[in-house]
């Protein structure tokens, strides 16, 4: 069964955890952060490193092991947590953890948090709020493109990014754009409707 467990730690061990930490630290820490770290230097705890993540426009500092995924860092380590992106398959197939890295959709379960440092991370929470939804979020509600809602953050994020790239998509292009997102309740037809409807209000994405 071990082979089914995430082996990110093994991977990092392969390249040498200390080496990886040092190499990564070079590009993830701001100069100020690094200085601060040198001055305070707490006792090293299980090889954790400090990372600054730019989440929804806010710099967020988090102490994590290098193997921690961006998804787990946001959900389990950031305080307060960012829980819009969901952990579902943990292997980059279902899209529920989709975030935007510098505007491009990425599965945050496949991205190490340390690799996301220095990038602009946008989650579903950063696209709009309950009171001020973006056009995709509003269309999802209007067209009932959600049931249990667990896949919804991923779809909303994927489609919001896609409509910026292709503001006037066909139905087939929408299908293609979110083929990396799974839904189990069976919302797909209405997800398509919502995406096409949101495209007509693309100034609000």
């Amino acid at each position, binding site marked *: *069964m071990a082979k*089914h*467990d*995430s082996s990110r730690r093994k991977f990092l061990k392969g390249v040498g955890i200390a080496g990886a930490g040092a190499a990564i630290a070079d590009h993830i820490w701001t100069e100020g952060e690094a200085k601060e770290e040198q001055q305070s230097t707490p006792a090293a705890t*299980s090889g954790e490193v400090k990372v600054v993540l730019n989440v929804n426009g806010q710099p967020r500092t988090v102490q994590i*092991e290098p*193997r*921690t995924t961006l998804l*787990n860092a946001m*959900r389990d*380590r950031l305080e307060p*947590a960012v*829980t*819009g*992106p969901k*952990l*579902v*398959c*943990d*292997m980059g*197939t*279902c899209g*529920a953890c989709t975030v935007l890295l510098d505007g491009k959709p990425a599965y945050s379960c496949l991205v190490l948090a340390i690799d996301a440092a220095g990038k602009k991370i946008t*989650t*579903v*929470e950063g*696209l*709009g*709020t*309950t*009171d001020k*939804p973006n056009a*995709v979020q*509003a269309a*999802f*509600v*209007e067209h*009932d493109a*959600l*049931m*249990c*809602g*667990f896949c*919804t953050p991923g779809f*909303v994020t994927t489609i919001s990014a896609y409509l910026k790239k292709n503001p006037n998509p066909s139905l087939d292009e*929408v*299908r*293609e754009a*979110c*083929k990396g*997102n*799974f*839904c*189990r*309740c*069976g919302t*797909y*037809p*209405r*997800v398509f409707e919502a995406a096409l409807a949101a495209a007509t209000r693309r100034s609000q994405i």
Partner: protein
Amino acid sequence: MQQQAQPSPSPKPKKKIRVPRVVNGVEQMVEIEVDEDSGPGWGPNDKHRLLNQRITRVDGPLKAAGAARYTHDQRLPGMLYARILRCPHGHARVTKLDTDAASKIPGVKAFIQAPLTELRFAGAPVVAVAATTPEIAGDALRAIKVTYEVLPHVVHAAYAIKPEAPKVVAEENNLQEKGKNGDPTKVEAAFATADEIVEAEYTSPRIHHACLETHGMVVDYRGGDSATIYASTQGTFTIPGDAAKELGLKESNVVSSVEHMGGGFGSKFGIGTEGMLACRLSKQTKAPVKMMLTRYDEFVMAGNRSAAWQKLKAGVKRDGTIVALQARQYRLGGIGQGSQAGQPFIYTMGDTYREIYALHTNEDSAIAMRAPGYPQASFAAESLVDELAHKIKMDPLEFRKKNLRDQVYHRQLDRGAREIGWSRRNPVAGGNPGPLKRGIGCAVGIWGGGGNNQCKVDVTISRDGSVVVAVGTQDLGTGTRTYMRAIVAEEFGLGIKDVKEQIGNSKLGGANPSGGSTTAPSLSPSVKDAAIKTRLLMAQRVAPLLGNAKPEEVAFADAKVSANGKSMTWREACASLPAAGITGHGEWRSDLQARGVHGVCFAEVEVDVETGFVKPIKMVHVQDGGLPLNRLTFESQINGGMIQSLGMALYEERVMDAQLGMQLNPGFGDYKLPGTLEMPEMVPIIDDDDKREAVIGVAEGCNIPAVGALANAVFNACGVRVRDLPITPDKILMGLMNTSTSRA
């Protein structure tokens, strides 16, 4: 001081009725007593202001913004993360468990061994660990050393049935007879009168619920005498009792919370083994423990839909009358009993005889999955019916009508046929020219969907005008919150936004678990009853202010309360209420719900006869359900049923390795779920010719006929009858090869 006893009101006349009660997701019928005359009804289905309209769901904005809070999103101070080590063998005993190395890993806090001595399937829980991060919990699992005594296993039904096969349970046959029904001698005689006979075997594999939110819970216990359990469950009230037992607390001191939940489909009742382990870890560490199954765990130990193996033989007369059926049905539930509806399912087939068996394998127990036992039986029955029609060269739609007594199906079949364009269907299977061949098929479905008397609802109106409807029920994504508000808002002439709901907490009024499509028919009558009673309480308060009107004359409409030509705004009327507001308590009323739904599905597919690839083109599902509480969410349920059926028909299958005894595709990378690229055009149709002024559950009914419809469409398209699900390209190519060989 003794109070004088009040004269008790004369007892209301009662009647006894039978209602479904759900145990572990499966309906059982029980008898209860209800009032014979219980109050005003819903009124005609087309006369509602909010019900039977298209109301966007009230929790939609939260979900779309990523702000809805699920169990998986809970994070508490000092919380530990739990993981489970699972048995890698199909059948084994643990002889040694060594956690020494694992316990030395910094951050590892506790271990609890699973209570099983004999592990009867690969994936059975062995030991659970709690650690400060999920990553460290994973390290601990890898550091635990387990020595197993490996026992012989069997995971395939065809082998399990053989006398020499390893026994799943020692000294017990893998094959267990579960019932015989009918007279085999009569059936033999009836076969003699048939013009044609079809004899075939239909198999459907184990498939998975694949809830996006895995099973699990967060146990918030920090020592002391109380605890809160955040659970991803279909039954708020299925949690506290068992959790209290594990924690050694009084049940009344354990509260369960189910704010939002990410899918269940029949698989989430009670605390489960994972919940039991989580509670024990929490009890031991006196710290909150989060135990959410990994996706792998979810596949191998969180349940599945029973596989099925059905041997059917039916005889038909040339005029289209089915005269005899003989069925041998194997429920393949792994170590569990499995489920499969008895044949001839919905059809009238003259003289029938069936034998039902449970055939055990070393796999985790099948559990309820959206219409337990029905999609499997439906697939076989609908394929058989299609084969019979083909044999006597009769239109399969007309053939169905001939053998279906219930006229509702006739009406629905006609409606569906118009919608899909049945007249375009080529009666010659595989008869369309070219390599891309289209075909159309249909099938019918049935379900109960009645409610029971478990919901206790409060409606409270405060002096500031706020209205709250409260009950401990759970919203699985079916739109429970939304129709609760709509029922109350309609009663008071208010808007959806004027009412707030409180659900998902065991401190609130009792509610039934969401299984068997019983939620809406159990809950909505209680909500309606609470609303009616609260309305009367309010009318009594405000009537004196409206020219001394009689309470029953007070009208509530357009956010106004009026009588005798006088009118007050809602706010003014509420200002006259006592400081504590007023609360009406609602109980279930059998007359506001009903039981028995019908559905038909039509499917059009395109089969590439060069590659065997099946492309779904269009699906139509016509479904009745009495009073549709919300057309928007009803249609979404229909879509969901069609899509899950599409998965069962064409894509989904647990693949087991005979030698290793383990699942080969326990992840979304290898277990094929229907995705965006597979979606056909979908037409969900609410059958408004159903005039019953009663609420009926529809989730299961929508999930039954589509598998048969798709299988029949594939046959019509290319002439290959695939009797073994899922209908994958290899089976079609093999079928085409056999067809051409037999022609040559």
